[in-house]
């Protein structure tokens, strides 16, 4: 199962994806986060950034991207429905991340009932060249790559899985690893057509 996902990811990445320079992505993303940090300030202050609001906004932007990205993902990879959440995790890591940003975060730390796992990012192209602002708060409050959580949440919602994704550690904050926790909340039921009176 794991090797199949890796093979699909590798193949699609090689043959079916248009690529751009990684530094363009890194710098563009950095500019967006920096701009949000300037724009979203605590009420009644001029330059005290509200990092919670920045995290939320990044998540929201990612969510809207995820809702669309999933269609492109499915069309490019030709994959169907996963049979269980473990397979989903493999697909996210070895196909999703591989195809779109050419990394494969490790899946680990499964909960006992297989409904949540950690994605461990050994590399993170979004965070290259980054230093968090030295204001004594960013280190504790800002999740710099939070857009990724939103992307996963949006994409999963389109394939009938409501999940929660959040970072639990980040090397930018001085942690040893960059890890995201993904938890399955529920499977979304098919919507019924409205009743005709």
């Amino acid at each position, binding site marked *: 199962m794991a090797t199949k996902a890796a093979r699909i990811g590798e193949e699609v990445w090689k043959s079916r994806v248009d690529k751009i320079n990684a530094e363009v992505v890194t710098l563009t993303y950095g500019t967006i986060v920096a701009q949000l940090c300037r724009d979203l300030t605590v009420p009644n202050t001029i330059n005290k950034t509200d990092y919670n609001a920045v995290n939320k906004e990044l998540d929201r932007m990612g969510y809207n991207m995820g809702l669309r990205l999933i*269609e*492109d993902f499915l069309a490019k990879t030709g994959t169907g429905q996963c049979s269980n959440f473990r397979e989903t995790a493999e697909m996210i890591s070895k196909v999703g991340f591989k195809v779109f940003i050419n990394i494969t975060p490790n899946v680990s730390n499964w909960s006992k009932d297989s409904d949540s796992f950690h994605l461990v990012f050994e590399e993170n192209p979004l965070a290259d060249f980054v230093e968090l602002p030295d204001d004594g708060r960013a280190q504790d409050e800002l999740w710099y790559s939070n857009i990724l959580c939103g992307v996963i949440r949006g994409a999963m919602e389109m394939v009938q899985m409501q999940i929660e994704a959040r970072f639990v550690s980040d090397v930018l904050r001085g942690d040893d690893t960059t890890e995201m926790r993904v938890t399955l909340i529920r499977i979304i039921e098919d919507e*019924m*057509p*409205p009743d005709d009176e």
Partner: protein
Amino acid sequence: MAGASVYSFYIFDRHTECIYTKRWTGPQSIPQKSTATNALSNGAVPVSVKRAMKAEDDAKLIFGTIFSLRRMARQLGGKDDQFLSYRTGEYKLHYFETPTELKLVMLTDTRVGNMRTVLYQIWATLYVEYVVKSPLAPTEHPRGVGVANELFEGGLEKFIDSIFTPAQ
């Protein structure tokens, strides 16, 4: 598939709404038009309104049908089973559903073979490229907003023409 013809094409989104409709009118629909115009002088509903109402009803009817058929297919054939098409004396309905619950439906005449790959192509190369990736289209399409753009419509017409080369 020379000589075969396509009647109509629908897309339904995950909220069960019809977000795109296209009809191909054959030459046999012209005499019907004139009788409908006569009815207008008797104070009947204008033909354009009538046709719009009929199109909406058709879409609802089709959705109801595929919704039930899809459920039946899954109950009898396992949860990954999908129905591909059904045929009546007059037409054949082809069906394709993506993992995101986008449902593509095409009505053609009864001689047409399996259209699953065609519907897949419409989704993968036209819908995803021109609708999903269009920065001007909203992320979801309530009442079909953003689906029927020029690139998608043009691409669809060309693609269908290339498959159903006109009879003669």
